[in-house]
């Protein structure tokens, strides 16, 4: 170890340190504090965590959270796969436009996109207005303030997150295997299902992980379209804090949600290249 080498390494660390220190002090430390609050308020001990076994509303909220996240993920994967496939394989015209349309929602805030769905699905929203105007229904349908409304808006918001990893994966796939299978007499469907699809699995799995993890902790869309009737865990936490000032319960649920998210990611590590999925995504 020459002194010169050592000082260079130190200089590189000097570049890293400001951002890292800010992140640890102002982000990681407050999260650790949340853990601390969950075992000290209102009194020291694991009393808050006992609620996980005792409280029916909390259990229901977790079930709703996982169910909504799972359904959202499945829909996003199927729809995202079709779009990606068309972009890289089926379409000859309009590929640039397709990619632009996939990316566009990223630039428009989730809040505004959720507002659009309220405008569409509300009691006197555009869909109900149109259906009543055509005489198809007499009374407005309940299209939001239920799980249906939350799901349709969640799929809308999450879909681009599913398309990007799948597209990135398909970009690197060589069509010659599929062409070979076709040349050997496989039907288009067989060639797709047995030759092409297995090659796209890594992209599908990263997309699944990304969408599921983001959906688990999602707040804005469920809160706006659920109308307090589809209490996913993030909204449940804000109720505990803002309405009841129950910091113990709120932080306990936060820690539980964080641990659940961590478990999902670690479980997925067996199937998904986490570096690719998170650290190196473009």
């Amino acid at each position, binding site marked *: 170890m020459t002194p010169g080498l050592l000082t*260079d390494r130190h*200089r*590189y*660390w000097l*570049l*890293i340190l*400001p*951002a*890292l220190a800010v*992140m640890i002090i*102002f982000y990681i*430390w*407050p*999260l650790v*504090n*949340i853990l601390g*609050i969950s075992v000290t308020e209102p009194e020291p001990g694991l009393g808050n965590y006992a609620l996980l076994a005792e409280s029916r509303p909390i259990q229901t909220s977790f079930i709703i959270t996982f169910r909504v996240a799972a359904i959202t993920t499945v829909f996003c994967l199927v729809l995202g796969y*079709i*779009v990606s496939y*068309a972009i890289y394989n*089926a*379409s000859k015209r309009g590929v640039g436009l*397709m990619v*632009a*349309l*996939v990316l*566009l*929602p990223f*630039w*428009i*805030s*989730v809040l*505004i*996109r959720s*507002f*659009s769905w309220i*405008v*569409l699905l509300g009691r*006197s*929203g*555009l869909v109900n*207005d149109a259906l009543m105007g055509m005489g198809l229904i007499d009374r407005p349908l309940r299209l939001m303030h239920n799980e249906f409304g939350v799901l349709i808006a969640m799929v*809308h918001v999450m*879909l681009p997150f599913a398309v990007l990893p799948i597209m990135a994966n398909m970009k690197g796939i060589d069509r010659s295997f599929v062409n070979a299978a076709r040349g050997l007499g496989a*039907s*288009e469907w067989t060639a797709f299902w047995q030759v092409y699809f297995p090659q796209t699995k890594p992209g599908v799995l990263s997309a699944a992980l990304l969408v599921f993890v983001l959906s688990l*902790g*999602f707040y804005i869309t469920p809160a*706006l379209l659920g109308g307090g009737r589809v209490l996913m865990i*993030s*909204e449940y*936490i804000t109720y505990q804090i803002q309405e009841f000032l129950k910091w113990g319960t709120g932080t306990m649920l*936060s820690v539980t*949600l*964080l641990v659940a*998210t961590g478990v999902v990611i670690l479980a997925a590590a067996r199937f998904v290249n986490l570096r690719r999925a*998170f*650290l*190196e995504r*473009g």
Partner: protein
Amino acid sequence: MHNRSFFRIFMQTGAWLILAFLLLPMLVVIPVSLTDKSYISLPQDGLSMQHYTNYFTSAEWLWATGTSLFIGVGVALCATVLGTAFAIGCWFLSDRMSTIARWILITPILVPPVVQSLGFYRFWVQLGLIDTYTGVILAHTLLALPYVSISVFAALANLDRRIPQAARSLGASVWTTVISVVVPAAKPGMMAGAIFAFIVSFDEIVGVLFITVRNVQTLPKMIWQGIQDNIDPTIAAVATVLTVITLVLMAVGALRKS
């Protein structure tokens, strides 16, 4: 042959339908913003600009817009400087420790917004940062850092390691090498990172709901409160303005690329 074309047609038609599902709901705010009624509806007896007048003459809405722009620019600056230095340091080291540092820096992508906001709230109370511009810029900078560091690091993947080595062996110091060799190579990533950082901040709502009260009013907060209290078409006008600006900027970006 019939089967083949069916599969293709299915995929292609499906894709366009899905893209319509992505795009069309975002466009409904446009006709609604032009309604002549004072509630959410399509225009009935004619088009009206009253909701745009409402937005552009409301001191509250304009102030909130200015606040969001100001905070967004501040966040873009802070996050780009910190994140670029970070990514360059990690790129030089490229060892186990620096990879761990990179994982630490992207945690805000994985932590649920409500959870991190509780953390912000409690710590910001201790620091006296609640309801201050500094507090919001700091929180948003943390949320934007992952995007800046990822995009700068990605830009550096194309930089040949022998080039900075050559600069060093010709006698340039570490700092000179960073400024005159590495930063120019990182520039596309820095630009993308700065834009991401601005948008992360400009759109952020959950954190702001927790760490601000009355003093700091951002645009998303005004929209959120508008949706909660009484949904009036002014929100649709604001949404339309933002959507149109986004579309124009995207078109300009696409034209400049081609």
